[in-house]
């Protein structure tokens, strides 16, 4: 029973095929916010059998756009489809004692539980790690919270905006001015990043499990995840007293440049990149000036040089300088909006967008994971669940409840 995936064998027969790295690995997802949903999405992308537990009111992503037809509807959220395709969905009210009992039964059968409740709230529900590990000693419990399970802010409330500001990330977003407020990351990117790090930790424990035997409680603090992602810049002060501020620009040639029809990012630090850039601009005379001679003097005079490069860029189109620049080995990239990303020839050539079915919306095109596995490609298993769609299946097939019992739970609004 110490094996990594002992439970994939039932009655002496292997019951799951291994088309995916996590085929047949049972995962429970439970709690508010988007980080837990993204974490479990990544696991389901690898073929894990994820049961998403929603409160009877439904997951917050159901209330968030984009909605098909732009009309808010809990079964028509594109965000919900993106986060929950391939998962099973059940509803459960864990404030009721019957609900708690069902939850514990689900926990007993799970390898991984991803949850996002404030630490005190889970204890108040009587579902803390101490309780759950009695039920399932090998459980990998992943708790994602704003500030972690310990420390003075453990019960502080925070959303992605707050975490971004409290982790140093906002201070690093170079908007060029201290006059205006520090800004947040794009949309839900911070929630998703925290979910991704949580998934890494969960898989690390799963892979270790054969040797360690036991389960674990993973304490994922969103503040710490973002600090870790920004660690080079954050430590620059601790180690070298180097202050990073949002009004300070880099001291190298390049950065954001405006073209006639939008923006590009230019990198032209190394010699080959710099000479490629000169070629792109038809070798202007000023390129032979003393200040352009080597990397160091270009860095010292970056402002002056950038001004001249910008004057050239504004007369050209972003796609043109992108392809011509890259052909000359200059890392130029256009600033794409979502439409550009969707319509990019590279997106098409790599099938980055995949079409999934949804009973209420029809066909939806959404990103597949950014990694292509040669042996275990991503596959569509089932549409994102409608609210409570798999109550019958999970509670009957997995927990062995009778139809009458399930009807009773429904009547008492437990599910």
């Amino acid at each position, binding site marked *: 029973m110490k094996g990594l995936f002992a439970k994939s064998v039932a009655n002496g027969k292997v019951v799951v095929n291994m088309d995916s790295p996590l085929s047949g690995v049972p995962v429970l997802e439970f709690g508010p916010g988007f980080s837990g949903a993204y974490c479990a999405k990544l696991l389901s992308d690898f073929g894990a059998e994820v049961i998403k537990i929603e409160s009877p009111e439904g997951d917050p992503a159901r209330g968030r756009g984009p909605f098909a037809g732009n009309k808010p509807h809990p079964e028509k959220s594109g965000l919900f489809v993106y986060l929950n395709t391939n998962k099973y969905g059940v509803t459960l009210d864990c404030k009721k004692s019957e609900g708690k009992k069902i939850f514990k039964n689900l926990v007993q059968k799970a390898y991984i539980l991803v949850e996002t409740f404030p630490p005190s709230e889970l204890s108040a529900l009587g579902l803390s790690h101490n309780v759950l590990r009695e039920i399932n000693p090998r459980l990998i419990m992943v708790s994602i919270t704003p500030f*972690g399970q310990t420390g003075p802010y453990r019960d502080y409330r925070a959303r992605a905006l707050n975490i971004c500001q409290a982790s140093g990330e906002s201070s690093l977003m170079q908007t060029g001015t201290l006059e205006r407020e520090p800004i947040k990351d794009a949309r839900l990117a911070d929630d998703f990043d925290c979910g991704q790090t949580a998934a890494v930790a969960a898989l690390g424990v799963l892979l270790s499990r054969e040797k360690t035997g036991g389960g674990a409680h993973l304490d994922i603090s969103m503040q710490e995840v973002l600090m870790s992602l920004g660690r080079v810049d954050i*430590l620059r002060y601790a180690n070298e007293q180097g*202050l990073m501020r949002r009004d300070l620009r880099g001291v190298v040639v390049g950065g954001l440049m405006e073209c006639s029809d939008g923006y*590009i990012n230019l990198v032209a630090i190394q010699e080959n990149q710099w000479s490629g850039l000169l070629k792109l601009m038809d070798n202007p005379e000023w390129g032979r000036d003393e200040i352009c001679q080597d990397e160091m003097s270009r860095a010292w005079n970056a402002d002056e040089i950038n001004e001249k490069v910008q004057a050239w860029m504004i007369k050209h189109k972003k796609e043109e300088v992108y392809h011509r620049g890259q052909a000359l080995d200059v890392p130029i990239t256009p600033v794409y909006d979502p439409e*550009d990303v969707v319509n990019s020839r590279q997106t098409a050539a790599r099938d980055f967008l995949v079409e999934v079915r949804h009973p209420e919306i029809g066909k939806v095109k959404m990103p597949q*994971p950014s990694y292509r596995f040669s042996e275990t490609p991503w596959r569509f298993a089932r549409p994102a669940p409608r609210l409570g769609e798999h109550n019958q299946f999970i509670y009957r097939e997995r927990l062995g409840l009778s139809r009458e019992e399930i009807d009773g739970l429904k009547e008492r609004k437990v599910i």
Partner: protein
Amino acid sequence: MDQMDQKVFDLSDIRVLDFTWAWAGPYGTMLLAFMGAEVLKVESMARLDHSRVRSLIAGPTYGGVNQTGPFNELNLCKKSITVKLSDPRGIEVIKRLVKISDLVTNNFRPGVMEKLGLGYEELRKIKPDIILVSSSTCGSTGPEKDYSGYAPSFSSISGLAHLMGFSDGPPTLVGGRVDTSVGTTMALASLAALIHKKRTGKGQYVDISSREAMSCLIGDALVAYTLNRDVYRREGNRDEIFVPHNAYRCQGYDNWISIAVGTEEEWQYFCRALGHPEWIRDERFLSRESRKKNEDELDRLIAGWTSGRTDYEAMEILQKAGVPATPMLDNEHLPEDPHVQARQMFLKISHPELKERIALAPPWKTDSPGDAQIKRHAPLLGEHNDYVYGKLLGMSREEIEKLTREQVFY
């Protein structure tokens, strides 16, 4: 308690032959090293990891190759060997290492590993169940596969930068955290492939596109386009649902408090905490929709309150009332924050050339206290040549000395 000593992560049976450099890949393999995997970083004086010599933001750095910030923050707990890949004898040694490794990682431009004779097909001949994880700017297929880029490039071409910044300003490029996010994706894919190998005995080739990794973080914006042809834009700190949702200036120099009110309940707590219970009945703010419509006005009123308080005072008042609020912390003030201190995020480690150095703890904590520690500094260049060539490959001292003299181990 004996549970406290029990290991949660134990990847000590996993060996990674790591060709990654710069920021993204090294962060990814460092996460594996934090979990106990043996990560052998393949380096050479002939082609130094540029994080040992320069930074995209700070430009060229001085001091030795073992002393730069970026290298030391992104390569903790790894081992370093030097070997010249342009020398066929170097490649032979690498192939012997492949034979005793589980995972090979790189973030070269597509085609470089093949040119070195280390493409997936070659590696498979040496070790049939090897896993090769490659990460590049655009992925290893498609018309733009040879295009190159760095973190800000990924942020620009993925759609991320377009969605960041003020609504009346330019897009905002993002650097470091984009690389490390791609690195996290690399660690995730590596672990999944390792689990699959453990279950089935099969290795595989994994191809990661950095721009796609960033696009996945704005998947909802891409779906908005495919679903409705809507092109989302940047809107500062605004959110489509939560309101108020912004950072507000406080007393002192460049101090800010961020506030994110999500529910009706929180809105009422908020108004009372500010001493403005009348806002609850104010027609301009009666519903979420009306607050959204009058958000500029609301922001002005809130700033009037915050400007008379310090960021920490504002946090305490609002948190006590049950409202999500935090100060804006930068790299100077993070180490002083009482919560960050209580969680022991900034750790002192020893370093042979720099004496003491501050490192940041791993992005997780577990039941086992050791997991929150940093066990070793980033390796000196070639620090582990003797261990790897001598102990792991069983080469004699003379042989190692000869190859060192002839600049194969260089």
